[in-house]
Every structure is written in structure tokens, then in C-alpha cells.
């Protein structure tokens, strides 16, 4: 598998939201400083940097050059990634590969996005195929609405069940000081009465557009124990791609082939046969309420078509058998380039016992996912036990 066991030993996040007080570079640096400060480290303790950003949102395409100082990479290797919505998770996986291969001992990963600088709709349009898809696509919202229609047809999930997901996310977010949307009093009725953006997706069924950044420090086995009392060891990672066009998967949101494929690989490598029992918390990349339930099905948390039961029976709440997104998830915070890294950082914080008010008790293993466009998945399973190589 890997030459060196690797662990996340520190994380840092900005306050996410509409951050008119910072520039893009300052925002990334805020997350980096918080990550390193939490362990009394400095940039001198970092061997290499991986930066994740979806450039079309701000329209600045050479962030690795322009922000090299802010990213703490002068005189060091700096790799920039853009894998769309998954980029934060791809960045964390890249940090893992650089450490697990034996190439570097301490690698800093940072994902950042400043959506208030640009136009979210215009940026999303550029991810569509210019010949086949742009003429009729309606940004992320129309795409997810169309996917939701497929999921509803397959699973029979109701608008009320989806609305409960939206409520759970915003209430969980109230315990997360970094979250963008914190709505303690939100109700199912409010979600169902919020503006219909694209049938069946209401405004409160969708994630927000946020500014924010997130950083992690990945360390090799020889130094991880010195850097954190309880490192979050990487038990497995997986990346799986599907075909390229939106219409290539026959039941796009109901059967998520890349998510299923990545889960099968990651579970096998980590020795997980019953995810609902063997995982203690999951941070799932859910851009819309319906998507969370579909993703939980495809991750094997319940039988296919049974996602509605997970929310009706409280299985995925903070107190449930498998808490999903105690951070509030993407539905509460979505600075795109940072979003999937926030999943990884939150999962790591849960394993390290440092998640604060939204800490789940006794977390031994945690799952984090990133899901891009619709066609690919990055996934990481973290645990408190140092894995054998």
C-alpha cells in the first residue's frame, strides 16, 4: 500500500461566510496560520505545500504563483490542484500521497475560495461541455434539481424528508463557530415554503455560496506522534471517476457509480464491512438536501431506496447511530475550493477529539467524501489507530 503511515496532525479553518474583510490570499493564509498555530508550528516546519482552488470562481488562474508567499511556499515545492468540487479532498489525498510515498515528512494542504469576488453562476457554466451542455444547463441548481427528480423516482423520498435534512444541517451548524449558515430556529415548513429555485429544490434545500479556507497538516509516522497527542491516521483513500457527461450515468443521482466504487475500495482497504456500525462519524459532501440521502444510500449506510428512513429515524443526527455532518455540512458552508477539505478536516478533528461543541463521543473511525460535478469521488477514512503499512 504505502511506504509510510501518514496522519493528519493539525487543521485550521477560517470563519466562513461573506468575507469582505480579506483578500483571497489573506483568507488562505488565515487558515494556514490557524492550522500551524494550533500546534505551535511555523512554516519552517513544512516541507511542501498543496493548494486547492477552483479558479473560475475568482477568475485568477495562477494562484500558485500570485499567492506563493501567502501560501507559505517560497523555496518549497508547491502543487496546485483543481478538480472541481472535490478539490479540497483531492488536495488532502495529494498531501497523503506525498507523505505515504516517503517523499516528504510534513505537507501542508490548503483549500480556499472567495466566491463573493466573482460570479458563481458564470463559474458553474464553465464546467459544462461547451458544445453539448452549456446551452441548456442551469448551473448547479438546475443540474441538482434534475438529479433529484431521478432520485425521487427511484426512492420515493419526499420533500418533507429532504427538508428535514436541510433543517438538521443548519441546526448542527449552530455548534460550529466556523459555519456560514447557522439557523437555530429553522423548521421543515420554512424549507418547504422557501422560494422554489428549480423543481423540486427550494432555496433552503441548496448550499450557500461562501468565502472560506481550510488547511491540514499531513505528517509521516516518525513525526506524527510528536505533533499531535491523537493523530488522525489515514486508513484508506480512494478516487474513482465515471464517464464525463451529465447524462452518461443512467440514474445519475439514484445510483452514484463513482461514489459506490470509491466506497467499495476505501472500505475494503480499511477493513470495513458494515459502515453504519464501523464508522463513528461521516462528513459527506452534500450540495443539496436530496443529495445527502442519495449519498448515504450509495455509501451503504442503508439499503438503496431507503434514505428517507435514515432521516425519519434520526440515525444520522448528532445523537444517532452514525452522525453525518455534525459540522453542518455543505448545506451550511460552501466555499467550493475549501469545501471538500473541510469534510476531511472535520473528520480529522473528530478523530483527534478537537471538534469542540460538535464533537461526537468516542470517535475511532471517520469518513470524509468529496463529490465533483457528478462524475467523480475522492474519499478518505481516518482512524485513531496507526495502521500497518
Amino acid at each position, binding site marked *: 500500500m504505502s511506504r509510510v503511515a501518514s496522519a493528519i496532525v493539525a487543521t485550521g479553518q*477560517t*470563519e466562513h461566510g461573506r*468575507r*469582505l*474583510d*480579506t483578500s483571497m490570499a*489573506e483568507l488562505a*493564509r*488565515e487558515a494556514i*496560520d*490557524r492550522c500551524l*498555530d494550533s500546534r505551535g508550528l511555523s512554516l519552517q516546519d513544512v516541507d511542501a505545500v498543496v493548494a486547492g482552488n477552483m479558479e473560475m470562481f475568482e*477568475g485568477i488562474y495562477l494562484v500558485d504563483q500570485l499567492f506563493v508567499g501567502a501560501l507559505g511556499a517560497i523555496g518549497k515545492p508547491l502543487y496546485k490542484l483543481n478538480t472541481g468540487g472535490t478539490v479540497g479532498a483531492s488536495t488532502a489525498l495529494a498531501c497523503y500521497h506525498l507523505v505515504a510515498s516517503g517523499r516528504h515528512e510534513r505537507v501542508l494542504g490548503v483549500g480556499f475560495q472567495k466566491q463573493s469576488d466573482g460570479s458563481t*453562476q*458564470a463559474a458553474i*457554466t464553465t464546467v*459544462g*461541455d*461547451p*458544445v*453539448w*451542455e*452549456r*446551452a*441548456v*444547463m*442551469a*448551473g448547479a*441548481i*438546475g443540474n441538482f*434539481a*434534475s*438529479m*433529484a*427528480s*431521478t432520485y*425521487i*423516482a427511484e426512492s420515493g423520498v419526499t420533500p418533507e424528508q429532504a427538508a428535514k435534512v436541510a433543517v438538521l444541517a443548519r441546526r448542527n451548524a449552530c455548534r460550529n463557530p466556523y459555519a456560514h449558515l447557522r439557523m437555530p430556529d429553522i423548521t421543515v415548513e420554512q424549507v418547504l415554503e422557501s*422560494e*422554489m*429555485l*428549480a*423543481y*423540486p*429544490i427550494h432555496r433552503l434545500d441548496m448550499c450557500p455560496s461562501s468565502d472560506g479556507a481550510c488547511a491540514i497538516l499531513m505528517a509521516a509516522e516518525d513525526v506524527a506522534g510528536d505533533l499531535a497527542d491523537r493523530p488522525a491516521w489515514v486508513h484508506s483513500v480512494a478516487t474513482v471517476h*465515471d*464517464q*464525463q*457527461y*451529465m*447524462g*452518461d450515468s*443512467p*440514474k*445519475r*443521482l439514484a445510483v452514484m457509480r463513482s461514489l459506490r466504487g470509491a466506497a467499495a475500495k476505501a472500505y475494503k482497504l480499511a477493513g470495513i464491512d458494515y459502515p453504519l456500525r464501523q464508522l463513528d462519524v461521516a462528513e459527506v459532501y452534500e450540495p443539496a438536501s436530496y443529495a445527502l440521502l442519495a449519498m448515504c444510500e450509495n455509501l451503504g449506510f442503508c439499503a438503496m431506496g431507503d434514505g428517507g428512513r435514515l432521516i425519519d429515524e434520526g440515525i444520522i443526527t448528532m445523537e444517532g447511530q452514525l452522525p453525518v455532518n455534525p459540522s453542518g455540512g455543505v448545506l451550511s458552508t460552501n466555499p467550493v475550493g475549501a469545501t471538500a477539505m473541510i469534510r476531511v478536516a472535520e473528520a480529522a478533528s473528530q478523530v483527534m477529539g478537537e471538534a469542540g461543541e460538535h464533537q461526537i463521543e468516542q470517535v475511532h473511525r471517520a469518513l470524509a467524501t468529496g463529490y465533483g460535478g457528478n462524475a467523480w469521488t475522492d474519499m478518505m477514512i481516518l482512524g485513531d489507530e496507526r495502521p500497518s503499512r
Partner: protein
Amino acid sequence: MSTPDPRQFDREQARRIEQQVTLQYRFAAGTYASRFFAALRDEGKILASRDREGNVMMPPRPVCGLSGLPMDEWVEVGPDGVLAGCTVVYVPFIDPMTGSQRPVPYGFGLVRLTGADTSIYHLLDETDPAKIGVGKRVEAVFKPAAERTGSLADIRHFRLLD
């Protein structure tokens, strides 16, 4: 070093530098799409690509993602099909083809054309969510031959048959 507390920031001091960036693109459609659009414009036919195992892909493409085989046959698909996904969009949205707002509401969906294994996005002629749905049958409505230019818009929209 620690960064300043954002809650202490005086928002009156925030400066934003406004810029407008206009970029013009001319995307080469490529061999497969060019043939597809020529058949659509000149013959009113919808062509898909097929490999030797019989996988039929829309949009047509050089290699089948399922089999990994070259797609060197062409087959006519449609003009009817079924909806694999659909929605009615209410939120105002900038049409990337025109740069202006597309009138809302409008319907669009994933259409699985008869004979094809995959679907394409296109507009629907229906804006009542109760009347559209996964599995409903639809049919392509072509622009008159004289108005066709060789783009996906030569299919004006799909109309509900059910």
C-alpha cells in the same frame, strides 16, 4: 504570527476593485460533433456513436467509456425518447449562449433517445412540474430546415407525448 480577528474589522474600510472581463471563445467541435451537427442541420437526423459491442453513446464520442473500445459506427437515434431526469427552473439564469437572462420558468431534462444508452440535456416545452416526470415520453421538435445552423439549438425543444 497570528492573523487579525475578522470580527474586529471595520467593514466601512472594505474596498472592492471592480473589473469586467469579456472573453470570446471559438470551440472547435471536433470530428464527431461536426458530423453530428451536419446530419442534424442537413437531414434532420440525430446520430449517435456505436462500438462493436453495441454500446450507443449520446453525445457521440471517439471512445466508449464503458467498454474502452473505439466508437466507429454511426446509428440514428430518436427522435423520440424518455425523460431520465427533469426539472422546471424558476431562478433567473444567465444564458451562456446569449449573455442575457433566459426567461423563466422553463423546463429542461435529460432525454434518453430511443436507441441510445445515455442521455442528453435539452429544453422541454412544459413548465408545469406536475406534467413532467422521469419515464415520460418525449419527442424532438426540429427547427425548419432553413433556420437550422448546425448546433444543438436546431432541436428547438422536446415536447411531451404523454
